[in-house]
């Protein structure tokens, strides 16, 4: 490589321009440029490392980089190697650009017209083929994983139908051994929190739903729109599309709670359409299923009984009834337009109203009942103008539904 500041082969120096005598020795210049170059590359690498560390060691509880099950792990295993290849390309290309900019910068006092090179066909063909080969290599495991994820679930998988509504998640367990023991023997149905056993494949069928809530204003009605079910630590997302059924396979390695949310814009409260998965150990799962198969217990506490009467009856002043939209197993309340409340206070039902608040948060439940739209803009549950004593009774009833 020629000395910086010197003539390149093929250069033209304009007649009359000063001869190339740099003010510092060529050796000093070369060393300075080398140092600058090295420093820039180290700085870039350091910044990248910091960002990466920031990404990996965070408090994020909904991270795609922290898989908690084999399906999410497969996705991360694809991403990470490609990411590092991209980092390598980044360093080479960006480093190259920076180096070229510094190495071939115009020096004051020298009027140089470089050799007018038009191209190099062999080189260009080469740098077209090389990336093509890298990409081809990357696409092989990619395609393999597409087909792996599209395979039919194993025979012992748990089957759940997931419905996205505005703006909450509904889960129904459709296996033959997951029916309730009362009434029409419907599938076990819960809202907001999907409960699953650990170490077992769960086959989710995603279905559109909605359109059963109406009101005096057009904005009161709920609509069947596209959503997307996403629990990053357990699986990739798939859209919930009205008119078709999509599928996700999921499995949790450990008991615990896994966060997620709707990932396809679905209207006003898309940003707070939260979902959770609670994975239970084998014993806890048995107990949970057994409890879900039973109808709601009739409360013994008088306040809770009062609440039950309010819930199942018509509210005074023509305000309507909770049973218009909500279901409680074993009672006359059977509508599926709104979240299932049969086991509202079960410990696994950690959150309510689109999973926006903790079930145990009494203040939040009270505020919700008082005026849903005031705490969740555009919520489809109307304001029933409940009196404080009515709210107290209803809360007692809801908390009795274990």
């Amino acid at each position: 490589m020629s000395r910086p500041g010197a003539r390149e082969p093929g250069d033209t120096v304009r007649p009359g321009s000063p001869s190339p005598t740099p003010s510092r020795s060529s050796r000093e210049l070369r060393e300075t440029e080398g140092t600058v170059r090295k420093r820039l590359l180290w700085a870039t690498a350091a910044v990248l490392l910091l960002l990466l560390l920031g990404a990996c060691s965070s408090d994020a509880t909904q991270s795609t980089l922290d898989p908690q099950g084999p399906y999410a792990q497969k996705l991360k295993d694809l991403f990470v190697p490609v990411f590092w290849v991209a980092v390598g390309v980044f360093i080479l290309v960006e480093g190259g650009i920076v180096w070229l900019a510094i190495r071939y910068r115009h020096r004051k006092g020298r009027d140089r017209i470089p050799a007018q090179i038009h191209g190099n066909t062999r080189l260009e063909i080469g740098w077209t083929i090389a990336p093509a080969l890298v990409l081809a290599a990357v696409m092989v495991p990619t395609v393999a994983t597409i087909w792996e994820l599209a395979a039919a679930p194993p025979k012992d998988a748990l089957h759940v139908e997931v419905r996205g509504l505005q703006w909450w998640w509904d889960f129904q367990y459709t296996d033959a051994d997951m029916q309730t023991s009362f009434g029409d023997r419907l599938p076990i149905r819960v809202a907001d929190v999907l409960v699953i056993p650990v170490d077992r494949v769960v086959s989710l069928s995603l279905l559109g739903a909605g359109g059963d809530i109406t009101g005096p204003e057009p904005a009161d009605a709920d609509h069947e729109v596209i959503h997307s079910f996403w629990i990053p630590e357990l699986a990739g997302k798939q859209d919930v599309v009205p008119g078709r059924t999509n599928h996700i396979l999921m499995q949790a390695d450990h008991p615990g709670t896994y966060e997620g949310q709707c990932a396809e814009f679905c209207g006003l409260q898309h940003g707070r359409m939260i979902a959770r998965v609670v994975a239970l150990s084998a014993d806890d799962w048995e107990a949970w299923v057994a409890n879900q198969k039973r109808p709601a217990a009739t409360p013994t506490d008088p306040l809770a009984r009062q609440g039950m009467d309010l819930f199942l009856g018509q509210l005074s002043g023509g305000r309507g009834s909770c049973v218009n939209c909500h279901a409680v197993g074993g009672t006359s309340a059977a509508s599926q337009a709104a979240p299932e409340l049969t086991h509202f206070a079960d410990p696994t039902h950690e959150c309510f109203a689109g999973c926006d608040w903790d079930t145990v948060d009494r203040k939040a439940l009270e505020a919700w009942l008082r005026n849903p739209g005031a705490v969740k803009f555009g919520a489809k549950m109307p304001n029933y103008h409940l009196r404080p004593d009515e709210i107290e009774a209803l809360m007692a009833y809801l908390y009795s539904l274990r």
Partner: protein
Amino acid sequence: MATVTTTTRRREGILRRPTATTGFTSWFTTIDHKKIGILYGATAFVFFLVGGLEALLIRVQLAEPNGTLLNPAQYNQIFTMHGITMIFLFVMPMAAAFFNYFIPLMIGARDVAFPRLNAYSYWVFLLGGLFLYSSFFLGGAPNCGWFCYAPNSTTDPSIGPSFYAIGLIITGIASTAGAVNLAVTVINLRAPGMSLFRLPVFVWMGLVVQLLLAFSLPIITVALFQLLFDREFGTHFYDPTAGGDPVLWQQLFWLFGHPEVYVLILPAFGIFSEVLPVFSRKPLFGYQFVVFSGIAIGFIGFGVWAHHMFAVGLGPVANTAFGITTAIIAIPTGVKIFNWMGTMHRGDIRFTTAMLFTIGGIAMFVIGGLSGVTHAIVPSDYQQTDTYYIVAHFHYVIFGGGVFAFFSALFYWWPKVFGRTLSERLGIAEFVLMLIGFNLTFGPMHILGLEGMIRRTYTYPDSLGLTMWNQVATVGAFLIALSILVFIVNLVVTYVKPRPSAAEVADPWDARTLEWLTTSPPPVYNFEEIPTVHALDEFWHRKYVEDERTGRLVPAQAGAAEAHDDGHAGGHAIHMPSPSFWPLVAALGMPLIGYGVLFSWWLVGLGVIVALTGFYGWALEPSVAED
């Protein structure tokens, strides 16, 4: 100085065809591609500022969890209009500004093929943009996202999605007319000797863009009509309960939407390919490869659309096919970068503001391109899609690549258009601020996306650990805003300074292409004499003669590079098309029809009459000929 006189006023009927090419009203009747280019550029810049304000609102809302600046209804309108504004009302028209101004000059023509259609395109664009923004005052702006998926769009009770459908039909008409115009111009109006492979790369990219538009806009127009009809006239194209399919909207939208992103970035590739050689003092490395890769992108760009739909459940066959085509299109997109690096190699690089924005733009585009390649890893995209990781990707390519390219082009071509050079010191300050602000805003979004932050969300829970990077992004956004302020100060400072001499601004950068052959600004007829082209980079070759064997240059004979006076008697014999007000009249019909569909059928009738009157006047008006 040659002048054009088109003085004979033929009195036909009550309305005389205008003749003035200067003065305030001449801006409303102009059919001069250069004035129209300036109109496009100024309008696009204003929309850029509006879209930027919308971005700042978004960033303030998201700086903290549970932000209260905007309620969800307001937020949905702001983020939707941010996307629509930046894509349809800023990037596309700003590219149109440069194509309009410079394609005729670069090919040695006097104007575009259809000057009045050119004016019509601009007015329809402006009126379409105003129509879209009037929605804020007429019941609510579009609130469904720039992609406006059905059935959310078909069932939303607000008037916003209807404004969306009609507004984009109107702006689509503008772009389609412009596409036909510029494509015909490039194909038919090239100067003698200007073969296709002597076209500047900017013109080639322009041609590919116009063809992409011509073939993709009809698709979205159909989709938008179907959306409008589902909402207003009771059809069920996207309604699954009545035999329709919501996914149909997505297929049609992305069949347009993917070529559209190449429409957004190819002008930037063209700009980089012009600026780099000038400020490296070397020709573009591998001109033919760069041109062919642009053409390849144009074709393959129609074969990748469903990579926006990997999570829709199209099935493994479709996902495999589109994953592979997406990987394929990365190749022609990426190798250009090596060609650009090859141009810098062994060059004599001058760090003007234009060059800084170009090098910075290429560097930012590389990052966006790399994250784009990770999206092609289909199952990994099941995690990435609909998260802030995607938001990071497209801002790196469209803003980092496209907007940086626009600022490069503004600094590069400002002397040619306005006869003044923008301040380099303020330009460099703007560049540094923008580079830092931009990376602070969008760099962390990669992390936010991978850590679970969804898109199009008006808030996020504080339990997700996303707060810090959101705060960083908000700070970055305000730095970007500061850099734009520096640019505006630059505009003011430049106009306050005394005007440079004609010689200083005719060819201040020692450039290579034909627009620098004429004065700055060019006369209305562009060239005293249409140049005959003998080579690629014709202007450079008139200044320097290259020894083919050694590549060494020697300056050409003095005066060889100047435009000669060939005895056309000061331009009196150059026949330019006359101004006209009919394109504006015809354009006015569009928003009237649009308002009519939403509010009153009488307005539709009025709009049709106005439009038809405009078209008849346009067709039948006399040309104003010289004696």
